[in-house]
């Protein structure tokens, strides 16, 4: 096996490197990729089209919003898949645990507990900032969502999985994860209903008379980012909760 692997890897590496001399130079602004009309268009027209300075956000949520929708679906699938594979029916799905058996403070350090109590709200606030400010700075639904999810994970690590699950029971996080995708898709479908192509946010300005097409694009991007954040944060927590407890959703690390 090792030899086969080595040969395969060397072959692959050789193949990959064999094209190296055909590559454009490092950092060449006029390489085909960098000077193509597509990338030029993004840089030049993002402001005109939607007024979002962060081109990555604009491309992510608007020009290639279709990809991002499926990316969100991928995240959702990951969560569902892990539940489908790992979840064992020790409790009724979604039902809260009837007996909060052990006290939080028992096994967990008080310093960690206190720090987390201070840290988690800040973390969550920061997550919301990242989501909301994705138009102007690095960030957006994914990053913010992951941070939000991380705050729940932090709570689960610090206090144990059970208290965290009491606040955010399985049924709720699964539902919210679905809701996230629903939010995303409904923006697209709204465009569809108003007679334009799927995810053509510009047409949404018809809904609010005070809004221009560009604003509509900008705001819709925020909307879909919020949807993404819902799904991502909930699924990240779901992945952690299932993996940490072997799918029993009890005890945890």
């Amino acid at each position, binding site marked *: 096996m090792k030899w086969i692997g080595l040969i395969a890897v060397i072959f692959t590496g050789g193949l990959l490197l064999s094209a190296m001399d055909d590559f454009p130079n490092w950092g060449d602004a006029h390489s085909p990729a960098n000077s193509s009309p597509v990338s030029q268009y993004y840089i030049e027209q993002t402001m005109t089209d939607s007024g979002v300075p962060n081109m990555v*956000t604009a491309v992510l949520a608007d020009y290639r919003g279709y990809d991002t929708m499926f990316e969100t679906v991928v995240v959702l699938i990951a969560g569902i898949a892990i539940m489908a594979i790992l979840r064992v029916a020790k409790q009724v799905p979604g039902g809260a645990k009837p007996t909060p058996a052990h006290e939080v403070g028992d096994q967990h350090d008080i310093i960690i507990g206190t720090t987390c109590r201070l840290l988690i709200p800040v973390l969550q606030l920061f997550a919301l900032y990242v989501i909301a400010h994705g138009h102007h700075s*690095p960030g*957006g639904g994914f*990053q913010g969502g992951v941070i939000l*999810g991380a705050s729940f994970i932090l709570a689960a690590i610090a206090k144990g999985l059970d208290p965290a699950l009491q606040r955010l029971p399985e049924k709720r996080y699964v539902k919210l994860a679905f809701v996230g995708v629903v939010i995303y898709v409904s923006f697209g479908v709204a465009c569809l209903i108003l007679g334009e192509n799927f995810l053509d946010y510009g047409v949404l300005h018809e809904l609010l008379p005070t809004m221009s097409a560009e604003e509509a694009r900008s705001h819709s991007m925020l909307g879909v980012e919020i949807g993404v954040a819902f799904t991502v944060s909930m699924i990240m927590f779901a992945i*952690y909760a299932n993996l940490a407890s*072997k799918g029993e959703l009890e005890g945890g690390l």
Partner: protein
Amino acid sequence: MIWQFDILILIFLVVTAVISLQVKDLLAASMVFGTYSFLICLLWAGMGAVDVAFTEATVGAGISAVILIATVYNTRRDSSD
């Protein structure tokens, strides 16, 4: 960005990748993998890909490492290779 710095990180990247694959303790491997993610996120930030770097910092160095560790915790820590 400063190219010497760039090359240094690239070399470190290879080193951490090899270490995380060679360490027999899976917990340590997960940790080193977290370091690897962090380094590569630095590299991307340097290359101007701030959004990618941000995502990698949260996802790669954060969530990936955590779920790896969670799995190692629930299974076995030592590995034969």
